């Protein structure tokens, strides 16, 4: 309690995320793998952070811990004033439900489930009444520009559209942060920029976004860049030359790539 108390008072007043001396060690047979070797990062509300690094640098592990999918071996993680390390499995599930929105590289939509139902899914695990559920899902789909494709199934949507459904799903519960793990990894460059455009718009509306990527081009759209190396933060800097996705899109040659059938 005392740890949480002091952290609450000193460090988390305006931070959405505050991690201190985070370490994560995997036991692979006899070998200990140190994925994180003491990471301390604070993220303020409304930031757009790109987390970069080579594969094996620990950025994905860091993301999974931030997303309450994994627990750190040591260290504290305060999310929105809550010491996550103290929580039970069920409480973590609730945190994932209320405070975190995930966007994955592989979209991770439920197949044979329509776009709107996919977006509604997080609300089903909460306490939202069914009427509001539908309205919220429709609104989230509109935010990512997919309002008219609500009843399409994932296999009827292009990769970019599927990722937008996933973003809508992440948004639907008004989370404190959106965590995106290589959201453009499976997309071509134009669609990638389109997705970044959506993230930038959401960020402009005040939503905190953390994005893991190994593409420097994509990281250019973020306001802040954190580079991981060997389980440690190597660089943590503000992006002074932030690119505007809408502007980039205008310069890109228009390709008719929205495959529908």
């Amino acid at each position, binding site marked *: 309690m005392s740890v949480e108390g002091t952290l609450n008072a000193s460090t988390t007043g305006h931070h959405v995320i505050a991690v201190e001396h985070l370490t994560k060690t995997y036991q692979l047979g006899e070998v200990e793998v140190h994925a994180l070797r003491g990471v301390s990062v604070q993220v303020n509300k409304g930031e757009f952070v790109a987390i970069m690094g080579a594969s094996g640098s620990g950025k994905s592990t860091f993301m*999974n811990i931030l*997303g309450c*999918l*994994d627990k750190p071996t040591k260290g504290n993680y305060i999310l929105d004033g809550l010491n996550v390390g103290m929580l039970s*499995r*069920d409480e973590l*599930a*609730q945190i*994932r*439900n*209320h405070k975190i929105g*995930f966007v*994955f590289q592989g979209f*991770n*939509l*439920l197949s*044979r489930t329509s776009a709107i139902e996919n977006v509604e*899914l*997080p609300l*089903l*695990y*909460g306490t939202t009444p*069914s009427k509001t559920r539908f309205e919220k899902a429709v609104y989230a789909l509109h935010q990512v520009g997919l309002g008219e494709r609500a009843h399409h199934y994932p296999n009827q949507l292009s990769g970019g559209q599927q990722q937008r459904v996933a973003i809508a*799903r992440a948004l639907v*519960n008004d989370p404190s942060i959106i965590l995106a793990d290589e959201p453009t990894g499976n997309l071509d460059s134009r669609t990638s920029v389109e997705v970044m455009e959506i993230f930038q718009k959401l960020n402009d509306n005040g939503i905190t976004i953390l994005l893991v990527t190994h593409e420097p081009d994509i990281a250019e759209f973020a306001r802040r860049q954190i580079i991981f190396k060997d389980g440690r933060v190597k660089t943590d800097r503000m992006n002074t030359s932030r690119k505007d996705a809408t502007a980039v899109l205008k310069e890109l040659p228009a390709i008719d790539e929205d495959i529908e059938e």
Partner: protein
Amino acid sequence: MKTLNIFLSAFRALQRNKMRSFLTMLGIIIGVGAVIAMLAIGQGAETSVQSQIAALGTNVLMIFPGSQQQGGIRSGAGTMTTLTEDDALAITKECSAVAYVSPGTRTNAQIIAGDLNWATGIEGGSADYLSIRTWSVADGDFFTEADIKTAGKVCVLGQTVVDNLFPGTSPIDQTVRIRNVPFKVIGVLSRKGQNAMGQDQDDIVLVPYTTLLKRLTHSTFLRYILVSATSQKTMSLAQDQISDMLRNRHKLTANDADDFTIRNQNDIANTAEATTKILTLLLASIASVSLLVGGIGIMNIMLVSVTERTREIGIRMSIGARGRDILTQFLIEALVLSLVGGTLGIIFGVTGSTLISHLAKWPSIITPFSIILSFGFSFVIGIFFGYYPARKAAMLNPIDALRYE
């Protein structure tokens, strides 16, 4: 997640693999169907045995004399000469719970009619004999009180005897000779068929008991007394009344054992019923083995399903599903499988047993109990065999489930 939503998504999940879901359910369908059909057939057998026993007569008590003992040698039941005509008359007069009394004795003899002869059992009875045995004459008359009093040489033949002695002709008013005594045939009994033990009940000649004692066996003691109680409820009362009165008449002290035995028709019925109950139980337990196998089929397919959908579980967990949400989801799927299977099984079992009873002329009775039982059983099987796979799914680590390929 609301229950209705879980049920809907369970239905949808099962619809995605229609063939697999159906094959999984088939185990339960066959199991429940078999249980219902076996219970129906067993129940049918029980009822037909009951009706056969009822054909013995209604509320019948049989009184036999006790066994004789000379020195150390004990003869069998009914060898004592303690039961007399007066005992029978006393029962008629004094026992209020008794409706009809027919003193009886029997012997075997060769009956001659013209140039045909036939060996059969000769049974003596009173005018009330038919009322006790719920029997009737198909042709002619039965003997009367007057025939009893005068030890009249009249007889009533069973159908089997008629078939053998008077093929193609009417035996009424004909004469038959029993041990050289001529008897006038005054009636023919209706056909009664076999009794519960397979004996031909129509192979019989009925004469007044007085005639049988005086003219054929030349004895004075009765082999048995048939009694019917006024109703099913008064049977044990009648039994007590008869017992008390006979002990009194036979001057038995409190220390003496009964010198007679009273057999209750219910005892016979109970024995036969117990036998068919055991049969039913045996059939049903064999059938429930297939229900168990069906349950294991559900567990198997749910385990496959959990492995197959590990990624889906991971996705659901990453967006906030708790362990218990996943548990409920898979449990409900198993439950839907077993309950839909159970419902189809009930339809299958009901149709099957109706078909069997129709084709094999085998009585079958479907009771609501057997339907509730098998439906309840498939519910329990769904929960029991669904729990392990569902728990396995719920215990998955979100990150491991998400990364599962």
